[in-house]
């Protein structure tokens, strides 16, 4: 039976109509709301490509059932973090460092880093690496990503 689930995404209240309230948030964002920032990588919470913020915390949307959410919880995706006209400092740092090869994982890298920097103002390089230890990149862009996050922390 189709149900309507209210969500707050990127500052806007939206209603998502789904047949299964346990559908992971990732599919609602990508398929119902057309947001491409969060990506499907594993569906298992192992790679981080699907990461979004829920109330400021970096969360794996591929293993977050819609039923666990309501409109009071503030969901932010990469699209809501910053815009091409008004980049978030982490996004700007990623562009400055050319910190993407294929860029498929980069949503998770940015969302994880932005949440991390919000509560860690002056991280060491080791802190940054540990904060990103569960985000996978296959192209080998790690060194640039760490530099970008370091620069964003100073910004």
């Amino acid at each position: 039976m189709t149900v309507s689930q209210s969500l707050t995404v990127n500052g806007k209240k939206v209603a998502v109509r789904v047949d299964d309230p346990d559908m992971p948030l990732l599919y609602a964002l990508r398929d119902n709301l057309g947001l491409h920032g969060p990506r499907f990588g594993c569906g298992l919470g192992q790679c981080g490509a699907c990461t979004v913020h829920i109330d400021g915390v970096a969360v794996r949307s591929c293993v977050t059932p819609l039923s666990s959410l309501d409109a009071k919880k503030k969901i932010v995706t990469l699209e809501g973090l910053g815009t091409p006209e008004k980049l978030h400092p982490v996004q700007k740092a990623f562009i400055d460092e050319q910190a993407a090869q294929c860029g498929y994982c980069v949503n998770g890298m940015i969302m994880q880093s932005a949440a991390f920097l919000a509560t860690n103002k002056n991280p060491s390089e080791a802190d940054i690496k540990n904060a990103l230890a569960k985000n996978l990149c296959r192209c080998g862009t790690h060194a640039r990503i760490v530099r970008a996050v370091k620069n964003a922390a100073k910004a």
Partner: protein
Amino acid sequence: MNTHFIPSRRHLLLGGGALVVSFSFAGSSGPAFAQAGAAAKTVAKDEVDAFLAIDTKGMVTVYSGKVDLGTGVPTALAQIVAEELDVALAKVDVITGDTALTPDQGTTSGSFSIQNGGVQLRQAAATARNALLIEAAKRLGVGKDDLTVVDGAIGKSGGKSVTYAELIGGRQFALKLDAAAPTKNPASFKIVGKSIVRRDIPDKITGRFTYMQDFRVPGMLHGRVVHPPAIGAKLESVDEDSIKNIPGVVKTVHEGNLLAVVAENEWAAIKGARQLKATWSKSETLPDQSKLWEHVRATKVAKEEVTSTIGDTAAAMAGDGKKLSAQYDFAIHTHGSIGPSCAIAEFKDGKLTSWSASQATHALRRQLAEMFAMPVENIRCLYVEGAGCYGRNGHEDAAAEAAVLAKAVGKPVRVQWSRADEHGWDPKGPPTLIDLRASLDASGNITAWESEFFIPQGAAAGGVVGLLGAELAGMPTAQQMAPGGVTGNSAIPYKFANVKTVCHRIESTPFRPSWIRAPGRLQNTHANESFMDELAAAAGADPLEFRLRYLDPADKRGRDILDRLAALAKWEKRPSPQKNNAGNIAKGRGLTYVKYELVRTYIGAVAEVEVDRTTGDIRVTRFTVVHDCGQIINPDGVKAQIEGNIIQTVSRTLIEELTFDRSKVTSLDWASYPILTFPHVPEMVIDLIDRPSEKPWGAGEPAAAVVPSAVSNAVFDATGVRMRSVPYTPEKMKAALRSA
């Protein structure tokens, strides 16, 4: 320079026609650039129009058969064309991998996108520029040699000028590619050789980029394939009622052994595929993994290929002197793209349109034509960029499956593979077993070198891997073995008196093989350069000096690499292993050298490692590379590729190994097939040697080849223990230390 681009190809992806309207060259007194009328755009590789178009505003469109696999290569291709045509980079747009629009420049693989693809584009642009100069000279009544081009305007200094748009805008060149058309003097390059920022990155950073996994077409349904529980299993029965309760399911498709669920939405397709009940026959086609190397050694040899033979190794090996022999092996690897394969197919009016992240859309088009017994003219394959692709992964297979499903339901269908589909069913980098033998005389000189490579038979680079979807559905697909150019770097760059290198091309290999970054060249260099280090140690020689002793004195570029590497890595001349390695953490350094396929990119590398004797953990702390790929188009792009090669190959060397039982792959996720993570990424020091007057060579994979041997050599330097079996897991390291 800092230029951003707005990609304008989306209208093409969304099904725009492939017709190009051309007009006669009004007022031309010279050779007409084009005939009147509308014609399908040519993709013939000998035609300038296949590669280039200039519109009425002077905007240049580049049509490239080479695609972006995550390297940013379209930015470099645009640089080449902008440079050769003398137009601003912002005026150049690049369309890639559309069989209706782009020439067949072969598979995007083997580090050939610049070396071959870019060089073809450069020649097309040079031909175009030359023709435009001739035409401008006539129009302006000035000698051609007196003309210069400034951002697409041709004129004599201080005189009148005419623009490319005025000369050719919107019309076709109708010119054959001219190999003799003069190219620019590299000394005058303004765009080539600069680290131009990548055009795709801002969209990727802000979530605006459309990957294949994001791409949608109107009226599309979602498909999920239920791959068999065992390789070769036959579908015996399907209980379609088992998913009746899932709203949104449209159809259960079963064609032969291709079983799939098609649904109105993605989640219904996923749930349907998970819940669908089916029975399959048992199938046990795989060898016992614990006896993999015995299996490889016992596999029938289909063909022997001698890749080098100098002197008489048999006689030399029978003589006096110290004899060394060793077996090296390299595990089966998966590509591990972060985004699993995805494709969309649509059958309409007897024509098939296929969108995928295929490395080779023209080859895929021929494969789909074979599969559906359709004329190739009725098929259009379009490239849409996917997640990083390091070889032939599952994209073509997903494309074939999408086509079967689209035909079955009469609507466009998107097939998205799951993580388990990708880890389980993409073709694999085959297991590689190598035997090496050498003889040294009393002064520590190598008198003979022999090697045998047990590697799958198959086409050289450029082969085609059969389509899984066709195989499952019982449809035609040529199942040739195509592991990539795996004999590369079996021969060695060193001048020994007696050398024989033989490739035993074995008849079969446990999994459908394909190429993964530096196929064969990686595994073969691992063995050769590690064994070279064994010989240096046996001779009591410094590994760098030992190599220089045998490098061709005429090969100055090779010697330059090692000289610069010694300085950059602060190489301390001494034999390995180092003497002070008593502590729990043993530190060492290892050197390696490669001339890629013995004909192109040169690389020297030094790995610095720490080995924890208690846990067996190996950490690569620093990796230094000196890299000469000739003329560099975009230094930062080359650097990014080298970084990627180092990190990805450290991962492959230390951690990665496909696991399987007698029926199937068992490493189906990132927990069972882990890859290197941030805390383990080495510091990297990279020195690029730019040679603007030389040919541009590839950088996408050669640096991968130096990694495993550099690590093996560094571990030996640290501990005196030789690692010969990739991956160098802590268990193997501990066992080696125990038996030392």
